């Protein structure tokens, strides 16, 4: 059922255009964290739906794109935690099994303070620039650098290889 059928409710074409612009990137972020393709689309649908439900407000947010990606990332982290059995403190990653790696990374991210986790997720999973992350989180680029630096340092103690290298293996 196309959105046109709901035009009176959905109010305008802006949402569809934005959806077309952001869909692929949102699915990519969801897949990098949650893995499963069907799950990824569910998460993306949920995030877009939250935006559409209050589109009159979300439409004009200066950091709308990043808001969406952050919502997708948060939903995906939640989904991973919900679906997987509890894993104790991640052990050094030896097998490059992607599912296990994804699980390990998501658990490691969960241990970070919220701001550090959001900065790293937006920077490395959503591939936003430091300036874009700063705009999303309403902080300065310098603060983003600090969050990312501290977050990566903290993750380094929990992972066998640098986070930046491991994340490249879950595409």
């Amino acid at each position: 059922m196309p959105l046109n059928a709901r035009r009176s409710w959905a109010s305008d074409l802006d949402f569809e255009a934005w959806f077309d612009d952001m869909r692929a990137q949102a699915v990519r972020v969801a897949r990098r964290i949650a893995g499963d393709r069907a799950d990824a689309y569910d998460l993306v649908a949920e995030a877009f739906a939250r935006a559409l439900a209050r589109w009159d407000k979300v439409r004009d947010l200066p950091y709308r794109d990043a808001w969406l990606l952050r919502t997708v990332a948060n939903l995906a982290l939640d989904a991973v935690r919900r679906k997987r059995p509890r894993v104790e403190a991640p052990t050094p990653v030896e097998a490059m099994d992607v599912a296990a790696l994804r699980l390990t990374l998501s658990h490691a991210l969960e241990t970070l303070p919220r701001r550090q986790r959001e900065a790293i997720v937006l920077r490395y999973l959503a591939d936003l620039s430091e300036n874009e992350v700063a705009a999303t989180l309403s902080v300065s680029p310098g603060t983003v650098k600090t969050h990312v630096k501290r977050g990566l340092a903290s993750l380094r103690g929990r992972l066998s290889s640098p986070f930046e290298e491991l994340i490249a293996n879950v595409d």
Partner: protein
Amino acid sequence: MSTEPTRDELLARIVAKAQRIRRRRAQMGAAGVICMVAAALVVPAWMGVARRDHKTTGIVANPPSVVAPSTTTTTMPHTTTTAVPGAPPRQAVAVVNGRLALVSTATGRIERYITEALPGGGASDPTLTPDGTTVYFSRGDGTCAAHLASVSLDGGPEQIVVASRDNSVNSAPSLSADGRWLTYRHSLCNLQAGAPGRDSVVIRDLTTRQERRIELDPEQGVVPQRALNSDGTRVLTESLGFFSVRDVGSGKSLLVVDDANYCFRSPTWVDDTSIALIDTCTPGKAALVRIDPATGKHLSDVPLFSAKSSQILFERHGQHLLLGLTEESGRSTYFLVDGTRTRRLGAFDGITW
């Protein structure tokens, strides 16, 4: 197995979900939606009110002077933190590395710890009983599980108040001023975020142990630290984009305050006639705003000295304020606002008094 939806299928799913979210919001039965952003454009007209408010309650100086914590060591009795009316409480309970500690509000120093560091999860979300003798808090039980416990400020073992059942996280306890009602957030980890029934606010009668459950909005619904009014008949809940005052008996929203730009923080009861929150809608600025919980009418608006202001907590008499500023480390630095003086207490993971 191909599960990838087409563009139109995905759009249809989004529209259906969005309609569901809107329906749920409508079902909350708001008595009225108050657009505070529009009202915020009339700040000059309120400044007189703000000054009167400052004179009569002495909440926040404009601008307040930040006074460094005293280095004087003072021995404090630690059986109670109850304030003498007119004076701020002598102690607060802070979260320090997963442990609860008594902190002197005069010096900001930790006087002693009242909980131990236990495997499985730290203590968080402390809240004091009205008589100031006991603290309720949330303790983690591993991944995605947490129970509520209480402990006397005099020491002794922790008592489990609400066990973690069914893989649930129980957090954000809050007590009514009469001490009879406990409210907390209950989250089921086996349900996806946004799923109906995943997050709810529970109101428990501590005398009969009967509970009433109100489902929270799926959009990141939370329960503030001071969520109940004095007799436990109204509960304050916060969600992405709005917060609401609900009737505990029916669960219906009596007031919904729309946060169109996601810039309101830390709504909290001051007393039964006012709710306070931090307004950060103006870039680089923050203000303490009071509204009427029945009508949403704006009562006063006072500038805060830092745009990083993120948390407010009035003591039980509503005369003194703890103000939290979120720092880059993720911790918060807390200040005690006492009349025209603002004193830095220290950096903690949470605090109550």
